[in-house]
């Protein structure tokens, strides 16, 4: 009986599980329960993915009120793809978290951690599935508030300033989105995304709509840490507990990229954004600067988590670059990189978390000699690092392949070359850490044990996923390609009950 409700389940399951976690009280129970719920959400998301690829868009009217009067949950291939990433990573991180937070978070707060994690998951799933612009803002705020909490749970005091900076920037971003949505509403009288799209397409150009778009793009850019609005990200990911860094780095910014895609392609339409407003050039330039500036920043950091954080900002540049190429192939590349980057960054942060657990530090010095002492962890780190560089047979290579192909298809030779040149910087920042691990000798008299099994299992699942999706790309590319096709040519998506509905609604 739940099948017809499946589009809304990934949101409300964690939402209802969060208060239950509080009532359960004991952190062991909360852990089991949260992991179970998250895994359940992952299962449902995969089901949704298969259904959308098979039957097209799924629409679900909350409260039985048909859109645009009620709120609609609308799952298409793009949402389902990112949803799978978010719920999947969340499940793995939760498994991983038990051992990881034991050292990094005060034991009295473990239950709160799981609760906040579930709330964040609910918020992210909500952003991904909702078909209503204002509802998106609400879920954005749920996930953001939970995120601020998660970041501030670490024992290092610097997490507090990081969380505060994140809070200020994030709230400014959210408020900008709110302003943008208001302006859209002002001109169209609706909040439903499809309805907005239909009504915006009636305008060739409107100052209010232009401003609205600009505010939304700036707001989302803060959330997704697009250069130069990324300043909140490195400290937040550096000082957050490792499990949180792993979760956020592979989901939160990805969801923000999804929001940008949604606003550009579904609501305003690529024509409006790129031709009327000329946003593609701006995004392209920012993306390339992000890739080089932040990759370079990553090469000079001594804290490994900071290295990974800067690398994240650079990798977000790749995603935005894909979007800014204004083509189906470019969008495919961007979406694909969302998926693949989640696999690599998740694994990298998990490996670093394991190192932190054993050595108590994430400075690059702490990695000295770990190649021998924590061989499994460092092997995982190596493979995920190679994936970041984009070595063949890893997921990262597939992303690079598509990005460059997309750039060449648009005759952007320089861009294509820059994408590849950017990965050379990745060789440096990954290489530095690997050299420390394999060539330096550990400090005198220190011996560390291999990470506990409960951390190694999720870590290696991600590593295997990196290899698997680097070889068999049919699944990931297929989903990204379908999603991109539907986003760029809405007419090619299979007809749904809703589009019939909408015909009546937009009269």
């Amino acid at each position, binding site marked *: 009986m739940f099948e017809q409700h499946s589009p809304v389940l990934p949101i409300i399951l964690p939402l209802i599980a969060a208060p239950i976690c509080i009532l359960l009280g004991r952190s062991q129970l909360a852990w089991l329960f949260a992991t179970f719920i998250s895994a359940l959400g992952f299962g449902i998301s995969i089901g949704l993915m298969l259904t959308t690829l098979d039957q097209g868009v799924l629409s679900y009217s909350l409260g039985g009120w048909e859109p645009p009067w009620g709120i609609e949950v609308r799952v298409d291939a793009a949402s389902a793809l990112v949803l799978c990433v978010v719920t999947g990573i969340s499940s793995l991180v939760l498994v991983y978290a038990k051992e990881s937070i034991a050292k990094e978070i005060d034991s009295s707060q473990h239950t709160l951690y799981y609760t906040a994690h579930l709330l964040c998951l609910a918020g992210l799933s909500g952003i991904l599935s909702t078909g209503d612009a204002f509802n998106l803002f609400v879920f954005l705020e749920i996930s953001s508030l939970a995120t601020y909490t998660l970041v501030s749970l670490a024992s290092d005091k610097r997490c507090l300033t990081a969380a505060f900076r994140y809070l200020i920037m994030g709230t400014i971003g959210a408020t900008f989105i709110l302003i943008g949505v208001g302006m859209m509403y002002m001109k169209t009288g609706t909040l439903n995304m499809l309805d907005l799209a239909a009504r915006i397409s009636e305008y060739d150009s409107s100052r209010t709509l232009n401003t609205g778009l600009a505010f939304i793009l700036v707001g989302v850019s803060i959330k997704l840490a697009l250069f130069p609005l990324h300043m909140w990200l490195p400290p937040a990911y550096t000082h957050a507990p490792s499990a949180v860094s792993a979760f956020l780095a592979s989901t939160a910014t990805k969801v923000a990229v999804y929001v940008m895609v949604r606003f550009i392609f579904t609501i305003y339409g690529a024509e409006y954004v790129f031709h009327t407003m000329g946003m593609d050039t701006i995004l392209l330039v920012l993306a390339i600067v992000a890739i080089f500036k932040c990759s370079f920043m990553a090469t000079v950091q001594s804290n490994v988590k900071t290295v990974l954080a800067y690398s994240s900002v650079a990798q977000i540049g790749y995603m935005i670059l894909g979007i800014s190429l204004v083509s189906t192939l470019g969008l495919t590349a961007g979406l694909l990189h969302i998926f693949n980057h989640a696999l690599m960054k998740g694994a990298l942060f998990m490996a670093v978390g394991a190192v932190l657990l054993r050595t108590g530090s994430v400075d690059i010095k702490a990695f000295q000699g770990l190649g021998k002492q924590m061989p499994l962890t460092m092997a995982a780190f190596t493979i995920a690092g190679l994936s970041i560089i984009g070595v063949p047979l890893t997921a990262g290579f597939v992303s690079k392949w598509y990005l460059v192909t997309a750039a060449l298809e648009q005759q952007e*030779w320089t861009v294509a070359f820059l994408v590849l040149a950017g990965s050379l910087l990745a060789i440096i920042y990954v290489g530095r850490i690997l050299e420390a691990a394999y060539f330096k000798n550990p400090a005198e008299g220190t011996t560390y044990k291999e990470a506990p099994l409960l951390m190694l299992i999720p870590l290696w699942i991600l590593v295997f996923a990196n290899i698997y999706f680097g070889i068999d790309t049919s699944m990931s590319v297929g989903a990204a390609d379908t999603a991109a096709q539907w986003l760029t040519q809405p007419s090619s998506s299979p007809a749904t009950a809703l589009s019939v509905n909408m015909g009546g609604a937009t009269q």
Partner: protein
Amino acid sequence: MNIWSALEPSQLINLTIIVPLVGAALVVLLGKNPNLRESISIATAVILFTLVLGITDNTFNQLNMATSWVDFLPGLNIAFSVEPLGVLFALVASFLWIITTIYAIGYMRGHNEENQTRFYCCFALAISSVMAICFSSNLLTLFIFYELLTLSTYPLVTHAGNKNAKRGGRVYLGILLSTSIAFLLFAILATWVSTGTLEFTPGGIFTDAQSSSLVSLLLVLFCYGVGKAALMPFHRWLPAAMVAPTPVSALLHAVAVVKAGVFSILKIVIYIFGIDNLSQISTTDVMLYIGAATVLFSSFVAMTKDNLKARLAYSTVSQLSYIVVGALLASSIAFAGASLHIVTHAVGKITLFFCAGSIFVTTHKKNISEMASLGRKMPLTMIAFTIGALSIIGLPPMAGTWSKWYLVVGALEADKLIILMVLTISSLLNVAYLLPIPIRAFFTPADQRSQSWSWSETSEAPWPSLLAITVTSVMCLVLFFYPQPIIELVNLIPGVSTDINGGT
């Protein structure tokens, strides 16, 4: 000759790639027991060689062999197929792997190296990648295993684990990965986008639909993208890689890795650009002269090196460019010469490296200046060294004669007199930097005493190493007198012939 005739021909390709992998796994499993571990290594090498022999047999019988692993992207898969050039390279690599393994047993034990299991394991992995490169049927497959070869040899280069090894490894990985990602991958993607295919096709895949400037650019990108071919200025990694143990230098940096580089260039020239189209590409001559410059320049550098391995490394850089030059002369016979040079240079240079390693293990001497009168102590080794050196120089009765001969004829046929001069001068330079070593060893007395030499003075390298050296130096001779099978194989390459003016 083909003991695997019971198997389906295409399975042989899979086996050539998988057998070394299985070998690697077994090596790791049996790492605790050195004797067993090394037996496995040799057994794997022998099995692999018989497999390649089987493939060679099938090639002569004109059997088509192809296999596809996975569909990587729509219209693009990881696939393998056999063509004569690949067979040639596979023969060389798999045969020399047996020899090198035997040599390595002597060397590694004699030197009491650490981490021998990792060494044998990575070695097998590298050979597996080389096999995959040999039989790759499209550029993507070639690229993937090209990168894997780089990565699997990295632990070998940095085997010593000290500061020098780290620095060498950094240069090694840095240059090879950077050039392959920034240039080779870029060129492959550009080819893919502009032609829609990456298949190796006799006669090339570019048509009139691609602008000539694009094709010219791609040629440059491919030549520099294959950093393993060590074309200047991206040659620094090869001397840097000499920090590795000598068996690694011998097989990988004289045979497998560098030859994978020039082999890739040959394959790209013949199956992506097409020999006939080469002369119409405006950058061919540019790259040709860069190759020629590399030949000369690195020979000069080699003369200045006192460290024996460094001198050999620069000699390798120079010899690799012979092959590049041969490929780019746009002449069928020069191309044949280039292909042959893969074989002849391999046996010659591996002999030299083996000797260098033996000298180091026995006497701990690295520098040429310390090797005076070494001929008294290691006469067999130094005789082998002389044979190898003569082969590299290209003097009869050594194998190197043939390839140089064809290269020279090719240069004449292509009417490139400058190249002819370069080849001649370079041969003289070879004489100048290689022959002084045995001369010094045999004729310069270490001190003033002049006793007559006796066997009791000798202290050669451990017997496995000595055996390996003997085999390779004999090969140098054999291939001079009996090059026919190899030449026949070269003639099977589409559009390549050792007959003047393209044969019939």
